[in-house]
Structure formats: C-alpha cells, structure tokens
C-alpha cells in the first residue's frame, strides 16, 4: 500500500466492530444490518483495515467517529458490501 488513508486529516476514524459489538449497535438502533449505510469492500479505508485485521468479509460493520461541526463528535456505522 502506497498510502494509509486513515492518516489523512480529512479521513475520520474507522474501526471494525467485533460481531457482538455489532449486534449491540444494531439492537440499540432497532434495525437490521441492511438498513445501515453501506461501504464498499473495495473502499481504500477497508484495504487499510484489512492490513490490521486480515480479510474483512461482507456483512461486517464499520464504526466511523467524526469530528462534527455541530455535535462535536458524531458516530456513524456502515455495512461492508461487495463490489
């Protein structure tokens, strides 16, 4: 990998959730995983995370923590999908 996008200042923190953690998030939001926003498996961020965690299969959930202009810190979740 030429460049670690997570180190760029415009890219917020991305974290791969463990399965039990993911279940808690879904339960907390009272949704099924397909109702989450998506992130492609081919996304550069996923490539970076794969360097750390090994291959990430579809259906895993990524947590994104952003610095928000309105809320200070805001959290979002994304479902990893193929293609």
């Amino acid at each position, binding site marked *: 990998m030429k460049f670690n996008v997570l180190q760029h200042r415009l890219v917020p923190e991305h974290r791969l959730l463990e399965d039990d953690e993911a279940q808690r998030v879904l339960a907390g939001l009272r*949704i099924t995983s397909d*109702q*989450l*926003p998506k992130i492609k498996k081919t996304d550069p961020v996923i490539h970076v995370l794969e360097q750390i965690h090994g291959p990430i299969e579809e259906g895993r959930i990524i947590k994104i923590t952003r610095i928000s*202009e309105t*809320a200070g810190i*805001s959290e*979002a979740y994304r479902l990893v999908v193929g*293609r």
Partner: protein
Amino acid sequence: MMSGLRGVTKRIKAIKFALLSPDEIRRMSATKIITADTYDDDGFPIDMGLMDSHLGVIEPGLRCKTCGGKVDDCPGHFGHIDLAMPVIHVGHVKELKKLLQATCRRCGRLLLTKQQAEEFRVEMEAMEETGGGDADFQVVTKETAREATKRQRCPHCGEEQQKITLDKPTTFRENGHKLTPKEVRERLERIPNEDLRVLGFNPDVARPEWMILTALLVPPVTVRPSITLESGDRSEDDLTHKLVDVLRINQRLRENRDAGAPQLIVEDLWELLQYHVTTYFDNQTSGIPPARHRSGRPLKTLVQRLKGKEGRFRSNLSGKRVNFSARTVISPDPVLSINEVGVPVEAARELTVPIHVQSYNHDIVKEWVKRGPTPAAPVGEFYIPGVNYVIRSDGRRIRVTDKNAEAVSETVEIGYVVERQLVDGDIVLFNRQPSLHRMSMMAHEVRVMPHKTFRFNLAVCPPYNADFDGDEMNLHVLQSEEARAEARVLMRVQEHILSPRFGGPVIGGIHDHITGAFLLTYKDAKFSKEETAYILSKIGIRDLPPPGVKKGGLEYWTGKQVFSMILPKDLSLTFKSSIAPKGEHSLRELREEDALVVIKNGEVSSGTIDENAVGAFKGKILDKIARDYGPDAAREFIDKATKLAIGAIMVRGFTTGIDDEDIPEEAKKQIADVLKKAVADVEALVEAYKRGELEQMPGRSLEETLEVDAMKTLGRARDTAGQIAGKHLGMENSAVIMARSGARGSMLNLSQMAGSIGQQAVRGERLSRGYWNRTLPHFRKGDLGAEAKGFVRSSYKSGLHPTEYFFHAMGGREGLVDTAVRTSRSGYMQRRLINALEDLKVKEDGTVRNTADTIIQFRFGEDGVDPSRSVQGKPVDVDDILQEILGEEPSWQERLKEQDMASYGLTEKDMAPEISDEEVEVEEEEPTTEE
C-alpha cells in the same frame, strides 16, 4: 369516491417493465387498422380506419363497439397496424447495439466461454440472494456485455466476428454494410434464452426480437381525441396525424413490394416507414429532422407528451391543478395581524369549506343554506357567508341557487355536507412562488374584505420575498378537519417567525417600520400628550401612563417609554443598535450615539430601536421574544411594534429627496481635489510602470500589479469622497437615517449620490474591452489611466459624462447578467436537491431515514438540534441562561464582541433569497456551464 376500498392499503413492492410481443399486440388489439382515412362524408368513423369505433368513443351519445360503454364508461381500446416490413423501435437502439455486439453473428450465442458465462451467472444469483438493487444488476450485466464484446471469435461455432456500429438514430452497420431491420431481427431470434438472462433480459417477458416492430400498437381514440372546431371542421390530434403517415407509407411499401418493384424503391420506402415510426415515438430524435405540422409546428408525439416540465410526469403526476384555490394581486394592509390575510368578497364567495351536518349544528346550517349563495348583508356589514353546494349522504351534489335555496334548506339532514363560503377566522394556506423554503407557504386566518386584492401585513413580506409591484399570490382553502388542525399547529405565520435557515427571525419590521422605530426612540425623542395618545391609539391603549418628562409646564412622553409599553415586563437584553458605527468602539462612544440598547425588566433605558432590534432577519428583541415567550407573544409583539413605528413616523413625518444629498460647495471642492489627486496618482503609477520602475507584487505580473494598485488607489479615493460627503450628512438627514437605521439603502449609496460613483468593474477588473487596446474611441490606444479604464469621477447627483455613462452601463450590465444566470442555475440546483431529499424524514428515534427505512443520518444534523429552535445555529445560548439564572450582567464589551461574531456574514443580502419572479425554463438535462 370514498367508499369501497377505503382503509385497505397496499404497498407496491416492485414495478417490472417488459416488452410487448407482436402476438400480445395483436391479442390486445380491438381491430386491425388498414386505411389512413378517418371519417366518411357523413362524419362517421370508417371501419378499420384510425377513428374506428372499436377503439372507444369520444363523442357523447355514441357507444363503443368493443365494450358497449358510453363516453365516461369506456376507457378506450387499442388497435394495431401490421407493418409490411419490420422497423426498429428507437427507444431500444442502445440495447439492440449491445446485444448485436455481444452475440455471435452466426449462431447467436453469447460471445463468452461456458466458464465465463457461468461466473457471471453465479454472481447474479448471489446478488439475488443478498437482495441487490436494480442498479447493482445493471452493473453486472453491463460488465457481461462488455466482456463479450471484446471477443473476436465465437467460442461456440468459431465464427469470426465483425464490427457492429450504430449509425444514429436507427441504422446498424456491420463493417460499413447496412443491416436491414429484418436481418437484425433474424440475428436476435437466434439468441438462446439462457444467454439472455446473463445479459439482464428475462426472455419470458422480453425477447430481444420484439424490439424490432412487426406490428404497431395504435392507442385508443380517447388518447388522441379529435376536436370539432366552431366552423364544423374536424381537427385531429398530432398522434393521429403521425399514424396517418405511417399507414400511408406502410400501404405504399406493401403495394410496391408485392408488385415486385425495384429493390431501390422498396428500400427507400422502408426507410421512410422507419422515419415515420421513429418520429411517432420521439419527434426530437437527434440526427433526423422533426416531423412537422402543415403550419410548420413540430408534432407532439409520444415522448414529447411525457418529457420535461410540461410533460405528463412533471405537470400531471408530480403536480396537479387543484380546486378551492384562488390567485390575485397582493397589496399591503398594515392593520391586519401578521397571521391574517385579506380575501376579496368575490373570492370568498367562490371558496368554500365543507361543513358536516350534525345534531349540534343542524339548525344553523339549515339557516345558512336558506340564505342561498349570495345573501344580502345586514345593515352595518358588507358580507355574510352563503352556501354554494349541498352534498347529500349518497354523494350527490346539489347546487344552491337563490331560487332553490329555501327548498334545499328543508331537505338538509344530519350526515349531509354543506359547502359554506369563507368567513373571518377560517384557516387557509397562502403561497408565493417560487416556493423555495417552507416559509413560502404559511397558514393565515381569513379576513373577508372589499376590493379585489389579497392583503397582508408588511412584516410578512420577507419570508414570501414579496413586494407590491404587481406580485400575485395563491390561496388554498383546507378541506378537512385534520388538515386544518395540522395547519394551525404547524403552518401558521407565527410558527415561522424563527427561520430554520439560520435560527433567527425572518418575519419582522421593514422599511418604514424601522425608520418609525428610530424616530420613536432615537436619543431623547419625546412626544406631546396628543402625539402620544395618537401613537398609542394604534395599539389600542387608551390610558396614558404617567408622563416621562415635564418641561416648561408641559407633559411629554419619551419614545423609549412608549416603546417599553409593548415589551414583556421581565425582558432584559443588551445589544448594539444598527446605527452604531462600524468597528470597535468604547461603550462611552456607543452611548454618545445612543447605539447601545439596554433593556432591563422590560424598560428601554438607553439605545435606539432600529433594524437590530425589530428588523426582519436581524431583530434581537424579536428573536428573544419568539424564543422565550412563544410564537403568539411574538406575533403580538410584531403587530404592536410595527403599528407603534407607523404611528411615530406619521406623527413626525418623513420624506427624502435628492436634496438630502446636498453638500456645501466647500465639500464639493474637497472631493474634486481628492479625486483629481487619485487620478494623478494612477497616472503616476502608469508612468512608473512604463519606465519599469513599478515594484512587482509577489505572485503577480507587472501588469497585474499595476491593476491592483490602480484599483486600490481609486477605491480609496471613492471612500474618501464618501467620507467627506458623509461629514456633511448628519443624523437629522432622512437619507442618512434610513441608511444607518437599516431601513433602506446604505452609506455607500449615499456617497455615490453625493461624492463619486467610483471605479466600474467587469469580472472584478477595471474595464478593458471594447475596441482594440482601448475601451472607447475617446481615448488613446493603450491608455491605462483612470478615466480610460472605467473610473467614474462624477456622482449620480452631478450627472455622468458620456464616457462615464457608458462605463456605468457596462458595469450595470454585468450585474443583470449575473442575476439572470444565478437564478436559472440555483433553480436547477434546488430542483435536484429537493428531488434527492424529498422523502427523507426524521423518525421518532432521531435518525433520518428514507422511505425504504434505511438510515441516512444517525442523528439529525449529527446533533439532533432543530435549527429553527437553535440560537444562530447553536443548541443553547449559555450566556443567556447564565444571565437569567444568576441575574448577573455579563461584561457588555464581551457580549457585544460575541454578537458581532455570531452575526458575521449574516446580512440581509445573504438571507433574502435573491431569486426573481421570472420563471426560468430549466430542462432536466445539465445546462451547459461555462468552462
């Protein structure tokens, strides 16, 4: 209408589109059409003609030969034309090209090995399981086709593939040789079903050869009705005209082919048939001339009926015409409350509210009906509502007339619905286009009034962006109890005083309101007993408070005292007035100008009430009252504050004219000197530039340096001229009062009238274009001096020299063009944005979701704050709360600095949507942008 399926809701899960097979076309056809004639000499439809009565009825009294229904019962039936030779359907050429390229020219198999095809098939099946969307499938099928197109030789039969090109719009070529539609069709027929699935076709409902037409479906006559003109002549629909063309050529083609005419002639006719069928579908196909009416007008065929702003989708399905609405010119009425609207009697008599007859209102409703549709008003009144229609329990509508009113009123029973005309207090929606934000449509209470315009309070102009130079507005009467309740809670004007756009007031004083408030409260303005009584009578106060000042045995009331009477008794607030000079100033300086507003316990102890206090967009008092005391209190405050201001301006009198910009000869001379010196300075710069002595600025060329320096010098000169002029225009000057208080105009406007207009610019640069190396022939070529490049030394008052006038027009033109371009571009941008966002909503759990219930935002705006309840975008105003709880006075200097920061960039210009009335034609396609 409301019976039967009411309460049963079904959800459309999917819509599938398929192709019509020739078989299907013939099966659904009520009759074959063979002749191009429509009516015989007696005016009856010809059998097997385009107006065949099997296709439905359009004339009352006749019956449909297919279903036997009358005009309103028969929906119409399709017919068909058997085409002599197959033709290509223009709508499908892209798919046809894809298929021809991806399949073998001999065996028709997909140009992929079994293995490759299997891979794609597996991928598609996997997607079906995970529930991929339509777009995902398209991606896969596209890739399949792309992969297959790459192959030169068929892996199945070994045939060498040729290059297929599409000659737009409908001609396919193989290595430059034309392929007839017949040949294309034969190739498509050879493609096996299993290969089609991978390409995204479902062969059960869409075989590719069906995209080559052998039979043409003829729409029912109800779709293309003919109109009988007054002269008795028939005028046919454009579609019928087009079908006549198709039939004629089809006939000739068949005759020629059957007679064994030369190949060339048959081919020509075949191509002509293709042209007519193509234009029948889409008369704006690029590459071919549009078919025209005899008058030269292009025909409106199928695609034209659907596409664009005037098409079926945008004007009949997304938008509809409505009943119970009215439109007329608007005019101002300062006595109305901000949540009222004056409705002309004529409109009120047409617009009705349905009243359900119950036991509690049976008698009174009967009384209403008895009055008829135009009841005479009792003495002293000019309007009482009548009734236009009575709707019986079985749904029949009975029109109430003066004659039958009495009789109908006796029949009114419980369960009937009576359509009563508008009365004062009815709630209606009021709207002005363009409806750019939610404040463009608000709920008002009706006030029926004489004369013919809609009237409303001037404080409501800003949210609608309305003025009274001929603007018209729409009014809609709500027809259900639910809608009225919703409008009352969510849409009334007072609920919209605070805008969600920037968390401040959009409704408030304008123009004279601000001037009036200024005159009322500036410094120690005081009013005599009579004057005070007059002003207070405007807000219905009859008992004068004890006088504020006694002087020379006379009693006076201060303006600040009068204004304080409408403030809540526990209001405390500190802020800078609009008249405060720009930049940082000590509190003492502000006090001297009476520009520091201090309100304590509802008493204005110092400061001038002006735009920063009660103005729309900026009013601090307005903001505070709306936030802390609620919408109703804010409504009352705006009503009263504007009325007080109008009272004050009427007592004092106020006028402005060009002589407000009169300045002494001495000052004129000073200004002339300043300008002369500036021009000379620029001349010196030019000389320095020519000698090469000009010091280059970093990052700029020598020429740019000169331009920047010149602009700076001349800009400074104009400002200095303005300042000199300004010195002689004091606060007693009407024009200055308006500019400083924020009512209208700016100090720049004044200095341009009294001092100098200044440098004109196009694209931010001094004027330079026109002639070769010069702007006008009045100057030397290459002259870089001030006057030659658009500096206008004169003032509006002194008048412009001819060259200056021309330069000024150049600068002015740019402004006009900019606004025109901006409106069209922002209109289109808004449309796309709204289309993307229209079905998102905030759910109970604070997430933003779309109609598929998938999450778009995990918390609305990431912080979950409603911007219209925020303080300038922030969820809470901590200082405000501190002050309220601790009763402490925060440091004023600090406070003011913060306010300056908060209002940074919030000027009226930013807030008023600068969209003019001109409806700008915006097409679906991306408008071409410069560069």
